[in-house]
C-alpha cells in the first residue's frame, strides 16, 4: 500500500531524514517510534507532501507520489492527521467535516457524517459547535473524523496520544483498531510505547533521521536491548 525507499528530507539547511525506507500494508497498523526530533513528524510530512524529499521514492497504491502537491496526494486517498490536531477553530464540527469531504473511492471505506458520529459518539451532540469551544480530546476525535471524510485508504497519524488524558487515549486506541477492521492502512508516529503496544502490528524505530530497527511488536517486546538503546525505557 505504502512504500518508501531511500528518502532524504531537509528543512532549509537542516538535513532531517537519511535514506529512510519503510512500508505498510492494507489493514496493517505500523508505528514509527522515536524521541522528539528524531524525524517522525518529518517522515509523515514528507509522505503527505508538506515537505518535499531531496531524494528517494514514495509509492502509494502503486503510484509514485514524491513530486505531488499535498492536495493531490490527499485526493489519491492518503489521509493525514497532524500533530496538535489543527482543526479549524472558526468552523463548526459539520463545517470541519465538509472541508475534508471528497468523492467516494473504490477500494476504500466510505464515510458520511452519520457513520462518523457512530464512531465518535461525542461529536454527534455538538454538530454546530465551533472548534474553538471543544476540549483537546474532542478536537482529537474531530481531526481524525475530518480526515476520514476524504474516504482514505491509508491514514497517517502524528502522535495521536500526545497531551490526552489516559481515558481518552484508551478510546483512541479502540478507534484505531476499528479503522484497521475497516481495512485501512494506518501509519502512526508515537513516543508512548504503552499506546503503541495496544494498537500496532509492526514498529520502526527512528533515531536522528535513520531507521534503526524494524520488527513486529512481539519481537520488539522481546528485545530489551533495542528498547533500552533507542527508546530509553
Amino acid at each position, binding site marked *: 500500500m505504502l512504500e518508501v525507499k531511500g528518502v532524504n528530507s531537509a528543512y532549509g539547511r537542516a538535513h532531517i531524514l537519511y535514506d529512510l525506507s519503510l512500508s505498510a500494508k492494507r489493514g496493517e497498523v505500523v508505528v514509527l517510534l522515536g524521541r522528539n526530533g528524531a524525524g517522525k513528524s518529518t517522515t509523515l510530512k514528507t509522505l503527505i507532501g508538506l515537505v518535499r524529499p531531496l531524494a528517494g521514492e514514495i509509492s502509494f497504491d502503486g503510484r509514485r507520489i514524491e513530486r505531488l502537491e499535498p492536495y493531490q496526494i490527499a485526493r489519491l486517498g492518503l489521509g493525514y492527521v497532524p500533530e496538535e490536531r489543527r482543526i479549524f477553530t*472558526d468552523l463548526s464540527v459539520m463545517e470541519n467535516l465538509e472541508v475534508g469531504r471528497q468523492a467516494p473511492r473504490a477500494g476504500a471505506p466510505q464515510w458520511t457524517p452519520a457513520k462518523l458520529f457512530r464512531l465518535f459518539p461525542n461529536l454527534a451532540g455538538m454538530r454546530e459547535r465551533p472548534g474553538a469551544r471543544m476540549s483537546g480530546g474532542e478536537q482529537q476525535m474531530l481531526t481524525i473524523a475530518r480526515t476520514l471524510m476524504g474516504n482514505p485508504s491509508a491514514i497517517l497519524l502524528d502522535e495521536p496520544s500526545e497531551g490526552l488524558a489516559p481515558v481518552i487515549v484508551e478510546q483512541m486506541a479502540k478507534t484505531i483498531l476499528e479503522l484497521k477492521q475497516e481495512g485501512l492502512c494506518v501509519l502512526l508516529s508515537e513516543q508512548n510505547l504503552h499506546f503503541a503496544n495496544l494498537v500496532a502490528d509492526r514498529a520502526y524505530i527512528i533515531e536522528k533521521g535513520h531507521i534503526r530497527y524494524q520488527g513486529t511488536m512481539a519481537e520488539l517486546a522481546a528485545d530489551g536491548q533495542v528498547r533500552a538503546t533507542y527508546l530509553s525505557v
Partner: protein
Amino acid sequence: MQYAPSRLGRGNALPGTPQQKSIEPHLSLSAFLVQLLNGLASASSLFLVAAGLSIIFGVTRIVNFAHGSLYMLGTYIAYSLVKVFGGGMLGFWGGVLCAGIAVGLFGALVERLLLRRLYHAPELLQLLATFALVLIIRDFALWTWGAEDLLGPRAPGLGGAIDIAGRQFPEYDLLLIALGPLVLGLLWLLLTRTRWGTLVRAATEDREMAGALGVNQAWLFTSVFALGSFLAGLGGAIQIPREPAVLTMDLTILSDVFVVVVVGGMGSIPGAFLAAVIIGVLKAMCIGIGIGNVSALGIDFSFSKLTLVVEFIVMAVVLVIRPWGLLGRQQSIPRGAASVEPPLYLPPPALLKGLAAALLMLALLPLFSDRYTLVLLTDILVFALFAVSLHFIMGPAGMHSFGHAAYFGLGAYAAALLFKHAVPMEAALLLAPLVGGLGALVFGWFCVRLSGVYLAMLTLAFAQIAWSVVYQWDAFTGGSNGLVGIWPANWLASKTAFYYLALALCAGGVILLWRIVFSPFGYALRAGRDSPLRADAIGIDVRRQQWLGFALAGVLAGLAGAVHAFSKGSISPDTLSIPRSVDGLVMVLMGGIQTLTGAVAGAALFTWLQDSIARQTEFWRALLGGIILFLVLAFPQGIAGFIRERWDARKDAE
C-alpha cells in the same frame, strides 16, 4: 523625485459633498440628514474595496498594496467602457460591471503569473511585489489615460436629485447606499452557505492543513484574488459619476481602506462594513460641522483638517478599547510562516576592520569625487540611516512598519520650520530628531498595542495622516509646494563640508543603532520578538520596550530627515509620503532583513538605482517597479542574505 499628486488627495476631502449646495452657519436637521446619507453613500464603495482586501489577506496572507491600484483601474476602465458603450442604461451599468469583471480577471492573472511564484518567499517580499505593481499600474494608467482628471457621465435615469427635507440629494447616491448592505449580504451567503466559502474560511485559518485535506490551494488562491480584485474594481467603477478618475487615487483609497480594515477588525467582513459606515458618516458629518467654522483660510482647508482628525480619533478610540478592531479577533499566528531568526553574533574582528576601512574610504572620497558624486553619496548616507532605523524596528524588534517616512518627514519639516523661524541651522539640526522621536512616541503608543500586519497597516495610516496634514496646512507647512531656502550654515555651505557633516551624523547614527542591538535593551527587544510569552514570563514589559524602540528609531529617522532637508535646501510633502515609506521597505528588504549590514547595502543600491533611472524615462515608476519585481524573484533572501547563503553553501562544501 516627484511622487506628489497633482491635486488634492480626494480620499480626504469627501467627493461629491454638497458643500456648494448648502453653506450655512449652522447644522440644521435637514443638513444633518443629508450628510448622514452622503456618508452612507461613500461608505459603500469603501466597504467593497475593504472587503476585497480583507478576503485576499485572509487566505493568501498577502497585504495587497496594489488593492488601491485595482480600485483606480476600476474607475478608469469603467470611464472608458461607458464612453464606448454609450451612456444608456445598458451601456452605463454594463460598463460598470464589465470594469469590475475586467479588474477581477486582471487580479487572477497577477496571482497566477506573479504572486504564485512568491508564496514560499517571506511575506514581506510578497508585499514588495504588490508595491511594484502599484508603480507599474500607476504608469500604465498615465500612459493609457493621461494625467488629466476624467469625470464620468451621470448614471442614466439617476442623474437627478430628490428632495430630502428641503434639500437636494443625488438619486445615484441613494442607490449606492443600498449597494453596500446588498454586497455584504451576498458575501455573507457566499462565505457561510457554500462549499467554496467554507474552504475559504478553512484556508484563512490554516491553509497548509486545508491542502493536506485535499483542497487545491492554487485554485482557491486564484479565485479569492479574482473575487477581491472584482470587489475593488467594482468599488472604483461605481464612483465614476461622483468622483473623477485621478492618478493618485490608488494610494489615497489604500490608506482609507487600511483604516477601515483596522477599525473593523482584520478578516471580518461585517466589521469592514460597520467601520466603513462609521468612518464614512463621521467624515461627512465633520464636513457638515466644518461649514460652521469657515475661516479666512478657505473652506477646503478647514473641512479637510476636521475629516482627518475624525478618522484619527475613531481609530485611536477603537484601538484603545478593542485592539483587534470592532468585530475582529486576536490574530492567530499563521502556521509555517514564522521564520526563526538566526542568532546575532557580535561582529568578528575581520568584519569590524572591513567596516572601519569602508568608513575611512568614505572619509577620503571627497578628495577624488566630483560635486555630483558627493551629492549622491550624501543622499546614500541619509537613506542608509533611514533604512537602518527602519531595520531596527523591523528586524530586532519585529515590528513591521509601512509608514516609517512619517518620522523622516517630521524630522525634515521640524528642521525646516525651526530654521524658517530663525533658529540657527545647527540647533535646528539637533532639535529636529526629537520631533521625529516625539511623533514616533505618539503614533507608536497606538502601534505597539497591535502586532503583525495590523501594526503595519496602522503605521501606514498614521503616515498618511501626517502627510495629509502637511499637504493641506498651507499656512504653516507650505502645503503641496513645501518649503524652500533651507540652507546650511556658512561653514557647511560647500558640498564637501556638508558631506562630512552627513557622514559624521549618519554613520554615527548607524553605528549607534547597531551597538544598541547588542545592548541589554536590544536583547529585550529581540526577546519580545522571539517569544512574547516567554519575555512576559521573565518580567519584561514587551509593549513598553517596543514603544521605546519605536521612538528611538523615530529619533534617528528624524535625524536622517533633518540632514536631508539641509542637503536639498527644500522639502516637499514627498518626504513623508507612502512611496517614501515603501522606499525604506524596499531598501531593507533588498538588503535582506536578517543581516544588520543589509539595510545599508540596500539603501546604497536603491538610491543609486532611483537616481540613475529617474533620468532615463518619464515612466521611471514602471521601470523601477520592474526592477523591484526582478530582484524579488531573483533574490528572495535579499542581497546580503543571498551573499550569506552563498557563503554558507561554500562553507558546507568544504
